[in-house]
């Protein structure tokens, strides 16, 4: 479906993506990476909106930069906010479908069906400036699926959605994926993408750091150092007990009441903590993770990539 051969994209002297090799068959993919990691650049290269500086990009067997007709087979929901002051949802989606080569009547019919599918039919005749963030997101999804594409690409689809909206989005994406259609979901939040159960593509600093199934990524995560801050009135005693009962990689007293520790055995640590509290009557007033798992993962993958640490089993 998509093939990138040693693809590099430079914006003058800034690297957008760096020497990416990729061969994706039809399926569901989660493109994960921190903000500014090169996800949108990669999507734009796949769509033929950008020309690779080095290497090549193939979409459905053809060069997307030269064959804009390929875009008929793709639905894109970008991360950017739409800014149409006056158009209604129906007018906008109809116009978007028309640009795929449909006549007005047919485009309007498809737009109505699509807006109904994303649950926006009740508000489709209202100006989009009056839409909430969630409604705009639905309209964006609506315009992406209205022409029944083979591959749907969504860039940060969960942005700005409330918990109900996030759940509905997850349900929609699962339904889409279950139909056997292609799906690429770009995000910087792991657990939201994980819910769709895709194959992961981990990108950071413009490089594809790892790819694989959720199980493979969990294996990488399991080996990732986990940092935790704990607040207690007896930090020295707590530190001694933790070192005795758990594999602690590093430990630091950050203040008179706070310790910062790092471990590769987070499950073991979380099992030990209640026992210590119970047996030694130690009061722990706060436990806080210093960063989310994805950032830690990317930090570790970058170190692996630079050869600063060794790790087996990465694909």
């Amino acid at each position: 479906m998509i093939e990138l051969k040693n693809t590099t994209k430079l914006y003058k002297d800034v690297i957008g993506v760096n020497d990416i090799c990729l061969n994706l068959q039809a399926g569901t993919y989660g493109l994960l990476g921190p903000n500014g990691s090169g996800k949108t650049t990669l999507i734009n290269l796949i769509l033929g909106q950008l020309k690779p500086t080095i290497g090549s990009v193939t979409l459905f067997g053809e060069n997307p930069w030269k064959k804009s007709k390929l875009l008929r087979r793709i639905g894109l929901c970008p991360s950017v906010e739409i800014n149409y002051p006056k158009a209604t949802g129906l007018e906008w989606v109809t116009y978007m479908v028309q640009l795929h080569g449909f006549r007005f009547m047919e485009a309007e019919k498809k737009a109505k069906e699509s807006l109904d599918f994303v649950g926006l039919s009740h508000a489709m005749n209202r100006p989009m400036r009056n839409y909430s963030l969630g409604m705009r997101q639905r309209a964006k999804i609506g315009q992406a699926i209205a022409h029944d594409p083979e591959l749907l690409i969504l860039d940060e689809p969960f942005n700005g959605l409330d918990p109900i909206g996030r759940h509905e989005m997850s349900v929609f994406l699962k339904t889409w994926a279950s139909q056997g259609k292609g799906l690429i979901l770009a995000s910087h939040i792991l657990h939201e993408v994980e819910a769709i159960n895709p194959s992961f593509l981990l990108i950071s600093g413009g490089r594809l750091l790892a790819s694989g199934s959720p199980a493979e990524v969990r294996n990488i995560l399991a080996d990732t150092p986990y940092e935790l801050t704990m607040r207690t009135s007896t930090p020295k005693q707590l530190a001694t007990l933790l070192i005795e009962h758990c594999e602690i990689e590093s430990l630091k007293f950050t203040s008179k009441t706070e310790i910062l520790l790092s471990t590769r055995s987070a499950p073991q640590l979380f099992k030990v903590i209640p026992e210590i509290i119970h047996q030694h009557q130690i009061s722990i007033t706060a436990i806080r993770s210093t960063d989310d798992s994805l950032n830690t993962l990317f930090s570790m993958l970058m170190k692996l990539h630079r050869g600063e640490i060794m790790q087996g089993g990465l694909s």
Partner: protein
Amino acid sequence: MKNILQNAIATCLYEIRSSFTIQRTSVSLVLALFPPTMLGLLILGARFSRAGVSNSILQGFTPLLTITLTGLVCLLSLILWATPNVSAELEGKSWVFIASRPGGRISIFLGKYLAAISVSFTICIIAISLCTFLINSQLPTGDAVKFWISLSGLFFLACLAYGGIFSLLGVLFIKRAMTFSVGFVIGADLIMGSVPGVLMNKFSIRYHLQEISLVWLGWFLPSNSETGYRAIFGEGYSVTAHILIIFGVTLVTLCIGAWAIVNREYITAYEA
């Protein structure tokens, strides 16, 4: 080709429909009413002038003023509508939605061009109609209709050619398209078109429109100025040749613009 035209018309209609905001409508209305207002004030001033302005002076001056003021309004409207063809989409963040459609780039270029010339020509028609009504008494009987038709045709050609040039500038110079367009009108078209030379001024759109207007309207400038005019501008071609040149310029600018918009990378967000 059929799809491109169909999409361009869809874009034009969508653009016009979503641009009917209070601000844009007010600007268009002000532009349309500017020439007749100025002309009306001038006629009133002349009538009540103590110096006593003769009808013959008014007869010679009012058609020229109608053309000049409507021309100014026409250019301004085209600059406002045609030049932000790409920049407005990039700033409004809608570019990525359009560019991810097959032929979306050409559609937005041609569609916005069509919208620009439709709106600008409508503004011109309103201005010309009101001006013709005002100066009707200065025109010989029956000439008002001929005057209106000639000016309408002239400004239709002006909209086609200048619209194409401004659209092209909008594609090539995204951030400074309006500045370049004003620069083109003043620097290239006005100055180059006024340079006394047989060849150089023929490269300006203004020259060809001027020649067409002299044939369609007759010599409306002061009668003793024709020899001097010909000494500066030389003999014109036939009207058909001038019209073909204008169509040719329009076609060339649109083709270059369409080629450029398809083959250019428009960076919407720096990822790295």
